[in-house]
């Protein structure tokens, strides 16, 4: 019986329309030659913000950040939206998991 309830709950959660993403401040990051540009992004602390990551490389990249708790694959030539925050003031490093040697960046919330 509780299984059924859990199935229903999970289904309901998944069926929830994703909250409107409009309204949040947008910050653009481009991936080119396995590097993030800009590599340092300053964002306001204390509010939800939207990162729009555009991958100009031909190859896929995975945007990953442990402190931001985000991991998202961005196909070559595609772009992806990542919603983060509200953040406390501080710096939050991120990297591209597929090209960790070069693809590094940091979000600075202030």
């Amino acid at each position, binding site marked *: 019986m*509780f*299984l059924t309830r*859990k*199935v229903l709950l*999970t289904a309901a*959660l*998944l069926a*929830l*329309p*994703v*909250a409107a*993403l409009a309204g949040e401040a947008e910050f653009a990051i481009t991936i080119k030659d396995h590097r993030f540009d800009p590599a340092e992004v300053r964002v306001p602390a204390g509010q939800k913000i939207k990162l729009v990551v555009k991958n100009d490389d*031909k*190859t*896929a*990249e*995975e945007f990953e950040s*442990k*402190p931001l*708790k*985000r991991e*998202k*694959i*961005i*196909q*070559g030539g*595609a772009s*992806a*939206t*990542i*919603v983060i925050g*509200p953040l406390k003031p501080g710096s939050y490093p991120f990297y591209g*998991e*597929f090209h960790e*040697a070069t693809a590094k960046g940091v979000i600075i919330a202030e």
Partner: protein
Amino acid sequence: MLGSAIIVFRESLEASLIVSIVAVATVGLPHRARWIAAGIAGGVVGSLLVAMMTEHIAELGGGMGQELFSAGVLGIAVLMLAWHNIWMARHGMEMTRQARQLGSDVRSGEREMSALAIVISLAVLREGSETALFLYSLFIGGNESVASVIGGGILGLAAGVAAGWGLYAGFVRIPVRWFFSVTSVLVLALAAAMASNMARFLVAADVLPALADPLWDTSAFLDQSSLTGQLLHLLIGYEAQPLGIQVVVFVTTLALILFGMWRFRLRPPTRPPASKLADSTA
């Protein structure tokens, strides 16, 4: 070559540890090896399909398709693991008595095995699709020779499988009288860890509130990107900086599964042997 070996190792380690936990938890179930192999094969095929459809999946759900897909995959795995533990609470004792052989209820054991094959498939699918995309990007990147990419991939995969095998070999040595308690705890922890991970993806998709971010920070004590941190993250859901909602979902999952195990446990006195015989002939 080292780059591809490390990434493939990291991804295959996760999948291989989950496969080995399932293998330990299903000792004695009918046609176990066949189901495990089918689970892995299904996962490999699935991961190639998911890798090919990455862009389509990403566009779903207002651009949050990837997060919702990951959450859904984890959610199904949690349900299967929960079912397994509740089922085991009922049949495990009986199996211990018959030296880990499931005598009376083969059909039920078969169904159980298929549920856990799904867990294996989903684990392989999640990690495999990332690995496929990564290797593909190395191929078309053209900076590394095909031989070096493949060589690194095989090396990484071998190391990942070896780690899973090691865990399995260690756990099957556990004496019979503790075996089911240990495997129940393993599966319980794995299910709660996956549920907490699911909550993280639902927060990323903006579906669930974070509640607190982070609730606490133990990264100075044990960094989550260290090997120990990663292992504990996978096995018991360790998070150096957990979201409030992750802790809520983790505890709720533990409580619900434990309640189910208690509610459906086999109560003494057990069925007399006569009725068991009747069951197996039915």
